[in-house]
């Protein structure tokens, strides 16, 4: 049974095929890793002070996290095993709800969580509309809405806004789950839609274009972040873009491979950053440095994961990216953008690893130079890091890697020398009627001037530059695709 049949209420159907197994195994493996980390790295009911920095949130974080994370994994499995769209949607919405609680457990995550919730809710409604339309026989518009709905979850370009905020504010293990597992359900959905024969051809190109744009845009945004978790979050946007490019271009196996790569690598990186935060109480790049000495294992694992993500040819993990790249051959413009994104990824990861682990030690306090987080994390990290090695194969595009690596290094160094600090993105608290009630109807209240003022300022500070950048990238993409 195709997972894209509309389904009927009250009947849950499930299906298993290779794609399902792929996503499911990924979910379970990362889930195990995250749990192990959480058991060790988060505080119990009588949690200590250090745990607050890593896990964030109030006392008793671990229990709450586990209570949320376990059903989250179940819901993810529900999504990927769903035999029809309705079943899928049911788990999808549950996932959205649980995700809210995951994000909400972070310190200062209120705004991000709320934004996440609304985005997911609207995304869910769009998805529902898509499902209904497909069920009603309008497979064209239905597919568009399905893509949009799944795209929201995946962090596809125009609807990615929630992702950096949520991923960076959530507690580290939650971020790992979010980036590693949850956004993959969106990708799973898009994959299913695009592999369905009923989907119009035109949508392949659309996904391809959006993916390409996202890959470049995310990379550029990530490059200018000064917060390690935000950097990783933007990197996720970029990587999702890469995967979507692959799906759109028809490089399906490569895409799935890259899904696995990104999931595991990003989980390791988030957990590593979490471990760093656990020790040092900050994730600001400016406050870190030289940690390779105190946390060598963490460093090694991060490096390993970073290399996998960059597409280091000796790792099997790079095969996916290579296949995606191959699918682009013959379209020079797309290849150019893809190259930019790849170089950007290299620069990002170099930046992360270099700023955190290399260089002079910035932390003068010897008291915090404690041992590493411990054997559990190491074991977990190894499991995760080993994933890309499961199917070792010889690289096929060593030159490409060298080129991207070179370009990325240049990019990183350039930024290091001259790079401007990107204006910090403030997460607006949405919507303002959330807790502060306005005068009751009848008659809708007038828009307060202060709110208007804030809106204008926000537009000038945050939205306008983003739009400009987006515009440039899209223009480039359109230009080269022509």
């Amino acid at each position: 049974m195709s997972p894209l049949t509309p389904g009927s209420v009250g009947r849950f159907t499930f299906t298993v095929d290779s794609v399902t197994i792929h996503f499911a195994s990924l979910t379970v493996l990362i889930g195990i890793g995250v749990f192990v980390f959480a058991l060790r790295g988060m505080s119990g009911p009588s949690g200590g002070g250090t745990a607050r920095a890593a896990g964030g949130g109030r006392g008793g974080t671990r229990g709450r996290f586990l209570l949320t994370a376990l059903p989250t994994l179940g819901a993810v499995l529900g999504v990927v095993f769903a035999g029809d769209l309705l079943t899928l949607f049911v788990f999808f919405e549950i996932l959205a709800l649980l995700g809210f609680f995951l994000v909400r457990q972070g310190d200062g995550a209120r705004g991000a969580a709320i934004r996440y919730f609304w985005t997911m809710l609207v995304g869910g409604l769009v998805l529902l509309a898509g499902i209904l339309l497909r069920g009603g026989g309008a497979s064209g518009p239905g597919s568009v809405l399905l893509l949009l709905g799944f795209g929201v979850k995946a962090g596809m370009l125009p609807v990615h806004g929630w992702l950096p905020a949520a991923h960076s504010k959530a507690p580290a293990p939650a971020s790992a789950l979010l980036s590693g597992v949850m956004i993959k359900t969106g990708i799973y959905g898009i994959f299913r839609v695009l592999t369905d024969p009923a989907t119009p051809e035109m949508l392949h190109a659309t996904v391809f274009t959006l993916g390409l744009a996202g890959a470049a845009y995310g990379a550029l945004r990530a490059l200018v972040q000064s917060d390690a978790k935000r950097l990783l979050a933007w990197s996720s946007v970029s990587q999702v873009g890469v995967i979507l490019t692959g799906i759109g271009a028809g490089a399906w196996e490569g895409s799935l491979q890259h899904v696995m790569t990104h999931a595991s690598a990003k989980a390791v990186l988030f957990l590593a950053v979490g471990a760093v935060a656990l020790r040092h109480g900050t994730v600001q790049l400016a406050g870190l440095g030289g940690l390779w000495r105190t946390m060598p294992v963490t460093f090694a694992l991060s490096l390993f994961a970073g290399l996998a993500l960059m597409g280091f040819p000796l790792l099997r993990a790079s095969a996916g990216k290579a296949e995606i790249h191959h699918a682009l051959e013959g379209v020079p413009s797309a290849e150019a953008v893809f190259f930019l994104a790849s170089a950007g990824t290299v620069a990002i990861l170099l930046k992360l690893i270099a700023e955190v682990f290399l260089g002079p030690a910035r932390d003068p306090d010897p008291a915090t130079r404690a041992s590493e987080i411990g054997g559990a994390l190491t074991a977990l990290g190894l499991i995760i890091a080993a994933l890309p090695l499961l199917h070792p194969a010889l690289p096929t595009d060593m030159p490409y890697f060298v080129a991207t690596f070179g370009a990325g290094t240049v990019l990183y160094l350039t930024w290091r020398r001259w790079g401007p600090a990107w204006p910090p993105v403030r997460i607006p608290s949405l919507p303002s009627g959330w807790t502060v009630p306005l005068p009751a109807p009848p008659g809708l209240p007038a828009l307060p001037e202060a709110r208007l003022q804030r809106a204008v300022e926000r537009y000038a500070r945050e939205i306008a530059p983003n739009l400009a950048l987006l515009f440039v990238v899209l223009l480039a993409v359109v230009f080269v695709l022509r």
Partner: protein
Amino acid sequence: MESILFEIVPELRLHLRFDALGVLFSATAGILWLLVLPGPRRGRRYEALLALSFVLTLGVGTAGNLLTLLMFYELLSLAAWPLIIHDETAEALAAGRRYLAYVLTGAAMLLLGLAVVTLAAGDVGFGTRVEVPALGIVLLLAGFSVKAALLPVHGWVPQAHPIAPAPISALLSGLMVATGSFGMIRLIQVMDPPPLAILTGVSALTVVLAGVVATRTDHLKRRLAWSTISQMAYVPLAISVLDREALAGGIVHITHHAFMKGGLFLCAGLLLHHLGIRHVSRMGGAARRMPWTMGAFTLLSLGLIGIPPLSGFVSKWVIGAGMAQAGAWIPLTVLLTGALLAALYLMPIVHTAWFDPPPSEGPQVDPPPPTLIPVLAAAAITIVLGIGAALPGFPLALARAAARGIGG
């Protein structure tokens, strides 16, 4: 099964009929009444009228022709009125006056419509289809829309629902408004309606505007009342699509909504009674004081928004599927917008209650089991009806059977 009793006026008989639609409605009424029965005693008058209005609701459910339907419908309107003003405050009395003015005007329109229909087609039983002038149908629809709280004539709901005692609010929102929609369904069961573009427009407007107003309302029960206006407009919206599946969705929505909104109003009543909370802005930390109550509230809210697999989702899904089948894109959009608005006015309550600090700490004051159980039962029903939607004998099956009986 039908039973024809008395001839009330020449050619028009008191006529009872048991079909899927009526059984579903009556069963909903029965269970909802069971839920509102526990709680503090409120005196002879209250209990007598409560019982009376239950009987009359059953009458609405089992009416076999238009006249009988209208009869029970009007009597129910009147029987509910003393319940609304039960608290006898000046505010309640004002609300009661307004309620009566609205409901009676609606009744006048219904009667006129019935007269037009009777002149054209005689006794209109629900088993046969008849040809009647469009004017009659329009009048009847307009009359029913007063009770169904469609937009220009919704005015009684936001006043009457918050002012009534909590169990009565639950009944009003759960079933009283539904009788209007029920009447509309009965109408299209027997007559070919004219193009229902106006009904579509009006209900769409109602869904959206009432939802927007609900987000702007601080008074908890009033917000829930606006929510009722918005949510119950789904049913006429579904009717106006003229699709069998959408209709089934509309029918099942009546039942599902009854339990969800009924439960929410009961929760609101408990909040008021145990914590003295009337306003959303005062609800910070309420969930810490009354975790069970607010747990049920949260679940019911999620159900109302239409989060799967709760019952609210089932009705939304079935309505939506029907609309999609019929190619009614605008109603479908409105339907989803309504769900979004439901989230906009319900989730902040939940969020505030669970995550915001309480104004003053205090011990947990969850009500004693007899009062708490109905609320939890409503939540449980929401889950069961959602997950078990496809089981035979469940509302959805009955609604589909009913819609089959109606589908032209």
